């Protein structure tokens, strides 16, 4: 009986510590079902799915964009500013390029510096060219390459829980943060923190 209990506790630990449970099956409605690989501004290659385990705000952008994309990054920063230091520490922001040809690691690094998001919590990354449309499809991002090299695209911030399930999205990105979206970020962070705390205290 005691053994069984211990066994169950071990199981529970595995199931709830989101960050450290790569062997737990990934939910079918997780965007991390995608096999896509990304390369960040430091030329590190990684599977998108390795972002599993942390609450993430995700969007798609391109560095040569002059108008809305900077706004998009600012939109992410505005959310950041509304969080407590503790909350902020557990939130990741991943911006995935629509323009992998031109968004080299150097270009991504430059944008991160210029926009002042040169932090380990922020990832600016480019996918393989053939994966762009399907990543966009998973995130509900619509886009079209224009003749002059610019892109038309959905301006959206997507909130993912630690398992990569879409929890909320907002297309209202400006100076004032979308209250509903912000509430969803805080709630999702709180849920993740509870899930993380359980095995340690138990």
């Amino acid at each position, binding site marked *: 009986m005691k053994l069984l209990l211990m066994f169950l506790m071990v199981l529970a630990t595995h199931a709830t510590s989101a960050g450290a449970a790569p062997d737990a099956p990934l939910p*079918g*409605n*997780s*965007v991390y*079902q*995608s096999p896509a690989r990304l390369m960040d501004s430091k030329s590190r290659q990684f599977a998108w799915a390795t972002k599993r385990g942390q609450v993430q705000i995700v969007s798609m*952008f391109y560095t040569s*964009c002059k*108008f*809305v*994309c900077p706004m*998009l990054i600012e939109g992410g920063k505005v959310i950041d500013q509304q969080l407590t230091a503790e909350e902020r520490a557990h939130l990741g922001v991943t911006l995935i390029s629509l323009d992998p040809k031109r968004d080299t690691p150097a270009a991504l690094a430059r944008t991160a510096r210029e926009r002042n998001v040169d932090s380990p919590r922020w990832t600016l990354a480019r996918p393989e060219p053939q994966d762009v*449309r*399907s990543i*966009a*499809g*998973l995130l*509900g*991002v*619509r*886009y*079209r*390459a*224009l*003749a*002059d090299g*610019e*892109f*038309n*695209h*959905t*301006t959206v911030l997507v909130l993912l829980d630690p398992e990569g399930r879409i929890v909320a999205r907002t*297309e209202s990105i400006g100076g004032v943060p979308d209250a509903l979206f912000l509430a969803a970020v805080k709630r999702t962070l709180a849920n993740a923190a509870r899930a993380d705390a359980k095995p340690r205290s138990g």
Partner: protein
Amino acid sequence: MNTLRYLWLAGSLLPLFAWAAGSGSSGGYVHIPAGTLVSALKFEDVNGAVRIDAFQMMRRPVTNAEFAAFVGTRPAWQRGHVKPVFAGPDYLGHWATPTQVGTAVQGAQPVTRVSWFAATAYCEAQGGRLPLWLEWEYVAASDRLRRDARDDPAWRERILAWYAQPSSKVLPPAGSGEANRYGLRDLHGLVWEWTEDYSALLVTADNRNQGDAETNRFCGAGALSINDRDNYAVLMRVAMLSSLEGSNTTMNLGFRCVKGAR
């Protein structure tokens, strides 16, 4: 006028002959020569005709039998196995089992209730891809004799007649429609078809009939609008594709693949 009527009649009977000849079974790709297209859509960044490079396109939409053969060797794309992010709950819902079409659904009918992700996976397994919207519009402009028949009111009416039919009708076999100038069948009159860039059709709900784009929703310049407001067949396709997510499936939405230039 009379000659036109006879031509018209001959044209409308052709599908029957084709069906009788059993052409429904012939799949494979047709070579599509390069050319130019003035899209019925108006893109802010494009003036006039766009160049379309040569490519190959499947003669007809992919059938149930062909898709069953595909999922038979790829459990990840079987109903019940497929991850919900890649295909909605109705995915292949009309089949008897996850791998078998069954008697209620004919193998020769075009496969429908497939998501964009599944269609893409099928084409990739073929060494191909889904067509781009402009490639689809380019070949769909053709009728039996002409590469571009879009200015012909009779041709337009004929296509529109299909849209007026109730969608509950039993689907004919894929490939039973009349071949167009390129030898392609069923671009109109059978099912809707996925395009690779379905999500590039940035038509907002408010923009489906109106020229002005809803500028807030999209980065950069506004979305597209319409060059040719009388081309309802194209407009309906665009409205439909622009409303879809990649995991969506519908009763009347299938696909065909292309190979070659992009």
